[in-house]
């Protein structure tokens, strides 16, 4: 397998860490850029453990200027960028009737605008090299639209639509754009859930267990691999069978 240059956003979180590790494990020649914002202790640990194979890069995904700076820094070290995983995300659940407009704005800004800015920042590089893989992390919430998540579900549904539309725009340039829709995954998002809610959530899952970050990472790694070259505009649910 050819060595690849991969940028993963939200690389300090549980899912971002799993994605980075999946690509590290894929080939000893892969280089992973860990896009991080304020919290970065896990990413730094990973960087220290794999000094020649990954590096942190400052990246507030909501800021176009931050994307430009990150892509410039990557370009100085690597002549290409093969894979972008738009993983950075956040949620602030609450009923719409009482949701502060700022909570709507923040969630949309990180989850949807961040994907837009990211795709825009890397496209010229990928078009120039006539190859690229973009994988956007959406959510099962985009498809099920659960109550209490109007902001999150709308943003993640926007990611789905963006993915499918962009896939058509760049298909002829050798660039694929796909999305994964994780269900309940054992990450920080679930850690804050009390035991009763966890039990109720687990009961919704036909497999009767929550997913592991590594299982989502494996789906992302597949969509980024050479053999997935004819898959674009697709949504891959990783949710233990919920529907």
């Amino acid at each position: 397998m050819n060595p690849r240059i991969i940028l993963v956003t939200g690389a300090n979180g549980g899912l971002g860490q799993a994605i980075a590790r999946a690509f590290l494990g894929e080939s000893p020649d892969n280089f992973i850029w860990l896009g991080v914002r304020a919290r970065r202790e896990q990413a730094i640990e990973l960087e220290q453990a794999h000094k020649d194979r990954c590096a942190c890069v400052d990246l507030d995904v909501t800021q176009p200027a931050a994307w430009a700076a990150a892509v410039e820094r990557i370009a100085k070290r690597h002549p290409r960028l093969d894979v972008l995983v738009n993983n950075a995300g956040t949620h602030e659940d609450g009923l719409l009737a009482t949701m502060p407009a700022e909570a709507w704005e923040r969630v949309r800004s990180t989850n949807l605008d961040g994907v837009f800015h990211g795709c825009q920042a890397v496209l010229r590089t990928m078009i120039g090299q006539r190859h690229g893989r973009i994988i956007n992390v959406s959510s099962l919430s985009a498809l099920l639209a659960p109550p209490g998540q109007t902001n999150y579900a709308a943003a993640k549904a926007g990611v789905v639509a963006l993915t499918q539309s962009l896939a058509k725009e760049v298909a002829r340039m050798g660039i694929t754009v796909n999305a994964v829709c994780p269900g309940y995954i054992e990450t920080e998002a679930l850690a804050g859930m009390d035991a009763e809610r966890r039990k109720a959530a687990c009961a919704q899952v036909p497999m009767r267990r929550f997913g592991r970050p590594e299982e989502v990472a494996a789906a992302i790694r597949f969509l980024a691999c050479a053999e997935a070259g004819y898959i674009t505009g697709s949504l891959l649910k990783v949710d233990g069978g919920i529907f």
Partner: protein
Amino acid sequence: MEATPDLKKQIKALMVENLMLQINANDIGDEQPLFGPGSLGLDSVDALQLAVALDKNYRLKIQDPGVAREIFQNVTTIATAVARNQRAAG
């Protein structure tokens, strides 16, 4: 560099290769419109690819849509823009 026949030939070859046009580069007329009736039949995605290819090969940066419309009229207007840009760069 001027908008010479050789430069126009290079640009036609670049278009055929990058836009995967199913025609021979020699069959593209210098003044043949790129878009619209009687044209090569390019679309906005082709324009994006062409802009990236011109940047990569000739360091011609086209950011403004209005300027892009002027430059992307035909091979001659593209070659003129490339030549002008190279003169300006010294």
